[in-house]
């Protein structure tokens, strides 16, 4: 008889809070204010953009090799190291001791690091290269005014 196998045990995360809105309008019979449903909801950017806080790091774009993908010089990148890198994703890679951000082309035989700027050539990763994918870029933060982010 097959027995139950537990493969994944996780701690309960009690740090996040669920806030239930209390209506200030009191409870009245009849038609409730439609606005009550929207009381006190707020946007938490951390929660929205950072799924794995323990594996998330920030980086900053330098240069214009990814300009057509919307990554301009000085933009901030949110990098998630816990994600499995996939074909066509943008990732921060380590090649021979240098950081680079490129679009991954993972083909059957080879991996290419493809820039998004005609002025640059794709890099073919060869077995001689010391190469690994540092983390997958999930989000670009593009400050439009310098004063936004110091």
């Amino acid at each position, binding site marked *: 008889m097959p*027995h139950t196998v537990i*493969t994944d*045990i996780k701690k309960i995360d009690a740090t996040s809070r669920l806030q239930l809105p209390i209506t200030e309008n009191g409870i009245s019979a009849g038609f409730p204010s439609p606005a009550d449903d929207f009381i006190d909801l707020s946007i938490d950017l951390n929660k929205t953009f950072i799924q794995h*806080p323990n594996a998330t790091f920030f980086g900053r*774009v330098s240069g214009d090799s990814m300009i057509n993908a919307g990554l301009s010089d000085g933009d901030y990148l949110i990098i998630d190291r816990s994600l499995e890198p996939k074909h066509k994703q943008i990732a*921060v890679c380590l090649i021979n001791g*240098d950081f680079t951000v490129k679009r991954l082309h993972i083909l059957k035989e080879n991996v290419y690091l493809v820039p998004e700027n005609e002025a640059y050539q794709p890099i073919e990763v060869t077995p001689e290269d010391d190469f690994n994918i540092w983390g997958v870029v999930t989000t670009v933060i593009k400050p439009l005014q310098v004063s936004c982010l110091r």
Partner: protein
Amino acid sequence: MFALVDCNNFYASCERVFQPELRYQPLVILSNNDGCVIARSNEAKNLGIPMGAPAFKFKETFKRLNIAVRSSNYELYGDMSARVMNILSEFTPDVEVYSIDEAFLRFNGFEHINLQQHLEQMKLKIERCTGIPISIGVAPTKSLSKLANRIAKKFPKHTNGVYIMRSEEQRIKALKWLDIKDIWGIGKQHAKRLQQLGLHKAYEFTQLTDDWTRKHMSVVGLRLKKELEGEVTLGLDDVTHKKAIATTRSFDYEYNDFDYIKERVTSFAVSCGEKLRRQESCCELIYVFLKSNRFNTNAPQYSNGITIKTTQPTNSSISLVKYATTALRAIYKPEYKYKKAGVMVMGLSPEKSKQICLFSEEDPRHHKLMQHIDQLNSHWGKHSVKFGGQDLQKIWKMRQEHLSKAYTTKLKDVIKVS
């Protein structure tokens, strides 16, 4: 089963995650004030750089052997450590953070799963998410898990960094391999003594009688022996409340100026207060010590410490500073030069269960004030708000000539990718 998880060459590994050029180079990390070597990459170990090597003496050697040097970057190490510990706690609810790079884990009720597989997943996840390589040793007791970890680390090809001590044969074989001096918590004196008796391996220590051990090595030694025999005598500590918090520093030079030392001790007390409030604890004891330079054998030596009991549990920096400076006045002697001082707070209890003293209640405004100071300092940066007794001109600064950036905690310091 207990597991000991240990980050491999933790400080060096942290530096290498963000400075890939260091991956090809032997690397050493220096202590506060760039005094001596406190961590080494494997390559630096193999080049024969000893632990504690004074930086100024080895300056030429580092250059000649192309060894990279970094000042200790505790902001980075602390953040990376927290990430590792958080991920560990996804794999078992019982985690005791033992030091910045080590944790004991308990795996009870895991009999029905493949523990080896579970641990391999854990190791993989930590390495992928943080870039920090770890070693895991598992055994029936804490002391044996420390030994198992040693085996995992020593024989990476065999173990892949994970070693589970399951059988009696494995336990005995391991103990016959381990030198007595390397037993976790044996102490130098006891190790020496056992060696003088002709004992060399941990196994021989476990062959002594209980009576002899208790008589000559006290109940602590006996407990250790039982642990090595596979009998649990040490449990996991309560994780949330550490037993003591300390801030101590060696000075860059030797000082005997009271005002200078008072400034330092004040800052240490303030820092202890911050740490207490962060973990929502209060303390009842405060210990202050002063030490002259024991390496300067020509100078007269003096070392003293004093413990003061607070009138009520407190985590107010104002109160802590008051106690600490009172303590300092009691032990300071103007005729000596000092190289090290420290403040330690002990007798910790959760802030919530704070006992109220009938006659000498702390000014309730302290609590509010501390909250505001902590908020300001977390918003505007450490030391934005200081106490009068602290150095206001910032003349005091740690020597950190080789400090890397705060890659994970400051936006202006994040990695650059092109």
